[in-house]
């Protein structure tokens, strides 16, 4: 059962043009960073928005995906390498992601699955098929996770294997998700309390 992007969302990524996707990404970035662009709108401040790793990473991914769709596989692979060298974000060119991708901290992002619009990935989050050295796991590269619209992944959260995640889902920090999730769910880690070591001897 190979799940595709079209089954979940009904719209494919190619329904938008390249520049429109980029425009949506910039709009989403400005929405999240509206607190610190209010002060003075100088020309340097306007240009510096486009040089943040958050937007550069999105731009390189969109470009590589465009080239991959047109059949330029080698050039797409080269742009993925540039993205990896500059931002240390490993985003596969053949995965389909809707408009409004927002990645505030790009280091260590692994993104190898399909997703709808308004995806948010915080630091070190991973969306991948469950690869492995064992023979049963090795064919799993084509069974990718499929995320719905408005999904947020917290820091160090991961979605592994052929998993379907519904719309409006929040995956909390440090959660490892390996099963299907319906719409409008909120997922936490099972750890509830913290403990401190070292202060008990003084009291």
């Amino acid at each position, binding site marked *: 059962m190979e799940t595709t992007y079209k089954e979940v969302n009904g719209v494919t990524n190619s329904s938008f043009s390249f520049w429109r996707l980029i425009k949506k990404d910039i709009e989403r970035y400005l929405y999240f960073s509206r607190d610190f662009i209010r002060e003075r709108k100088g020309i340097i401040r306007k240009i510096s928005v486009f040089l943040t790793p958050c937007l550069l990473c999105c731009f390189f991914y969109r470009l590589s995906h465009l080239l991959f769709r047109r059949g330029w596989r080698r050039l797409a692979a080269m742009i993925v390498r540039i993205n990896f060298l500059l931002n240390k974000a490993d985003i596969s060119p053949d995965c389909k992601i809707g408009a409004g991708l927002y990645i505030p901290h790009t280091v260590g992002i692994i993104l190898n699955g399909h997703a709808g619009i308004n995806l948010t990935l915080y630091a070190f989050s991973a969306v991948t098929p469950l*690869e492995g050295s064992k023979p049963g796991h090795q064919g799993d590269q084509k069974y990718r996770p499929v995320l719905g619209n408005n999904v947020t992944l917290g820091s160090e959260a991961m979605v592994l294997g052929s998993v379907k995640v519904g719309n409006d889902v929040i995956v909390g920090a440090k959660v*490892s998700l390996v099963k299907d999730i319906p719409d409008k769910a909120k997922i936490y*880690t099972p750890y509830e309390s913290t403990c401190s070591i070292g202060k008990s001897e003084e009291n």
Partner: protein
Amino acid sequence: MISWKETHHRLRCDKERLQEYYRNSGGLRPIWLPSSPSYQCLFFHRISNYFFSNGRRLLARLFWHLNLIITGADISPDSDIGPGLLLLKPAGSAIAATLGKNCCIMGHVAIGGGMSDTRDIGAGPGLPLIGDEVEISYKGSILGPVKVGHRAHIGPGCLVIRDIEDDITLEPRVPLIKYGDNL
């Protein structure tokens, strides 16, 4: 003391393992294998390990820095890794331990010393000793002087701070899920 012949043999084993992985997985293959970061990080580590064990510390440090800049993997030069390692996503993984042959590491792992315990069990002060054919999934971490047995499988997000016997599978805890409209 690791000879150049041994280093070359280990690198060839790594290359064969990576080629086998790309052949069996149905995903995108790299056009040229040395351009993939999972080969580059092992190449730099093997060379820096060779220089470190032969007393050339400055050259070892140079290749370690190159590895940090190009692939983002922090594999310390004195860690002795057996032939046939498979490191899928090198960015953000830190390794300082003794590993056996044919291990598989997926990515974002932290393998090294803990905070305070500095006992030496064969890998160095406070560093873990890992057996053959161990598979460590995404974000698994092994900290402190710990012995991990052969063919163990450490699941995604698992933390190991005690000894593990052979043929043991660790799985992550089931997360808490809440449903509703007002979230």
